[in-house]
């Protein structure tokens, strides 16, 4: 038996009102229903962090949350990080500048996780940034350039081991 619920929420600043199946997780809702395919699924068991989105400002694994649970909340995905006119956020710019992405599959989750982290920790250390992304797996970059990008986005470019 298919059970559905009516939900309304805000996604990247736009109001959304729709009917969702109760078992639909938030990531599938964003990807399939709203066609916001920037949110990626890397494990669907809550470890890789690729699916991270911001729900009321908090970094949340959208594979572990049901769409119905997002009722009434304000969701930001990677598509919502740049300004309306397309200007990249300082963190997105820093990712480019520091080669913090290769295949780009973990990138949406890294960006959303770090966006929330840097808002709450505007002057982190290398260690703190690493802790902040310890729930995000990247197979390509070795993390170092991601840490460099995060620190650069705060204006502090110093990172051990970079040369």
């Amino acid at each position, binding site marked *: 038996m298919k059970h559905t619920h009516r939900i309304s929420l805000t996604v990247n600043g736009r109001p959304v009102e729709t009917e969702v199946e109760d078992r639909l997780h938030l990531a599938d809702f964003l990807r399939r229903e709203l066609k916001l395919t920037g949110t990626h699924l890397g494990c669907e068991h809550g470890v890789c962090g690729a699916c991270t989105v911001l729900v009321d400002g908090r970094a949340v694994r959208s594979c572990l949350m049901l769409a119905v649970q997002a009722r009434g909340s304000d969701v930001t995905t990677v598509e919502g990080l740049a300004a309306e006119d397309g200007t*990249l956020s300082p963190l997105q710019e820093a990712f480019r500048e520091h080669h913090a992405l290769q295949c780009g599959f973990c990138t949406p989750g890294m960006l959303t996780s770090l966006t929330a982290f840097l808002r709450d920790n505007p002057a982190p250390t290398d260690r703190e940034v690493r*802790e902040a992304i310890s729930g995000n797996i990247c197979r390509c970059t070795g993390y170092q350039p991601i840490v460099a990008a995060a620190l650069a986005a705060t204006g502090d470019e110093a990172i051990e081991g970079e040369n």
Partner: protein
Amino acid sequence: MGVRYFGAEVRRVEDPRLVTGKGRYVDDIELPGMLEAVMVRSTEAHARIRSIDAAAARALPGVHAVFTLQDFPAEYHDRPMVQPYPAPVLLQPTTQHPLARDEVCFVGQAIAIVVAETRHIAEDAAGLVAVDYEPLPAVVDCREAVKTDAPLAHAGSPDNIVARLRVAFGEVETAFADAAHVFEERFLQHRGGCHAMECRGVIAEDRPLHDGLTIVSATQCPYLVRRNVAAYLGRDEGRVRVVAPDVGGGFGPKAGVYAEEIVVPLAAAALGRPVKWIEDRREHFVTTNTQRDQEWTLEAAVDADGKLLGVRGRVIHDNGAFVPYGLLLPMTSLTPLPGPYAVPALDVAMDVVFTNTAPNSPIRGAGRPNAAFAMERLIARVARELDLDQAEVRRRNYVPADGFPYDTGQKFRDGSAIKYDSGDFEGCLDKVVELSGYAGFAERQAEARAEGRYLGIGVSSCIEDTGVGPYEGATVRVQPDGKVQIQTGAASQGQGHETMLAQVCADRLDVALEDIYVRAADTGAFPQGVGTIGSRVAVNASTAVFDAAESVRDKALQLAAERLEASVEDLEVEDGVIGVAGVPEMKVTYGELAKQLAPMAGGPLPKGFSPGLEATSYRTSEGMPTASGSNIAEVEVDIGTGEVRVLRYSVAHDCGKMINPMMVDGQIVGGVVHGIGNALFERLVYDEAGQPLNNNYGEYLLPIATEMPPIAVTHQETPSPFNPLGIKGAGEGGTIPATAAVVAAIENALEPFDVVIRSYPVSPEELCDLIEGGGASERSA
């Protein structure tokens, strides 16, 4: 010609789409009328299938079909998949049926495909398919599989031997007879799974009355998939189009051809609708090719000064349940064996065996990290026995800087000699010794020891044979608006090929990087290609782009000379504008010339010119450029918990001329982290019955940010004489030596306990046992 981009840390042209969520990976693509598929997979490691009951699944609303092999046309019922890399030495080139026929040989093997309106419905239905198994004995450990009385991985086969390989050169017997010392080492290597963050995925659409079959796949090798699938289905290659869109990491296993690349097209053809299948992570663990155990027994013959005279030994290689990828993985474990060392004689044999586990094919570096680990183990042993410094023992054994080109003594399949083109191995070592503060380590170690902390340092050197041929191609085409299109077959999985190829092209044509765009990895757009494996794209595709761009430039200059009534020698190009030197008003743009060369009906084509301002080249490197590197790892081991922390990691790498040093560093650092993961974390565990035990990221550990050290990278640039750009591949040089460096560092830290590590990944429990017990590690698979 100006050089503005080659060698510059140009920001990637791929990034704007990828940082904004606008990438287009397989699962992001939706076609009109598309259905979704889920595979039913074996839950048994080895069994005969008595029956499959799909009635309940078929009855579920929203299900369009459930196919077993018997539900496909009869011609496929007895047709195993086509071996992509046949070789005469393959004693049993066994490939699987795309859906199991009557026997399953590993947990995860595909048995049926369920196609439904949505993925959710397909998952529900897959759970309703009942498979009745008659269990058969399974063999899981390659060291068991090689024995004559071992259970057979395939019922009815003569034994479990896939192939017996041997690499030999020089006078090995003499080397051992003359040796001052002979040392034997035995160890087990294990490299784990692929774990690209994007799993595999396939979309197929068959339009028999239009353009035929289109397959979108997260593949590294669209042309191999085209060849293989066309051969299997009995179709014309010209009517099979394979496209790799944005791909979220490859690392080797996505280079193969998989059952789903055949089954999804068959389902799409039968239903007359596009069908999408996306692998989930649990499936990835059990069905995407892995790279598991190799047991090595090696002996080194050494003179009194610690110089290697000869190496001999035997390897058992676990190939898993099938041979999905010829012998490329086991062969690459043997041929690079001498590494950076001048070894006069070598004789190593390998038994490649079947087990009832996921099939094996290369993962980043293929067998090269295994070969490097093996040689580095011997070198470490020599250093320990003769009380030589880790750096010094290597200096004594390297191929000398004036010894290039160096003939290793081995031959390629075509009989030509395997040669290292260029390098300076000692120069690289000097650089990493400097970078890592090697000279001050003894002091750091002593200070730490005084506080009861155990620091260790490990050195590792390697070579990497890169850029394997035979070719990759490129078309460079100037459009009438002056933009330049590059088309190539070479697929990218995040390496930044678009940027790299644009850099090479921009310099050659003297146009701005922003005016170039790249279209890659679509067999419908570019006729031939090979694929992205073995650090080969920079070497092969850049050379082709370089050559094609040169032809385009020549053609443009010829036409411009006519148009401007000047001689070619008097022309200069800047930013896409060709002008007569010293006469500013005499100029024409590439775009105007392109338009002139592509007239519409009745328009004149300049005399003596073919249409289009474009050229295609398949020019390639003359041989396999040899990259090299030396790494130094510094670790701390907690002797109470067995925890290893890598404190710092230093790399000196030589991949010849670098097109984009930022991207090279990206390859190196990412590769090192993969190698550290192999040393410390990544272990696929199967129980004795062949059941995989750790198919999730809670239990299968991948390297994460907090566990990784700062990684410092420096470069030496020894240009390759094999290609006009002087480049060598860089994709795997970080991974190849890393595991050996970390393991050596752990042993160095635990010298007071005489710890010798005989297997990786090294777990804290094992280290605790070793510290308590002294002596060497042993591990069952």
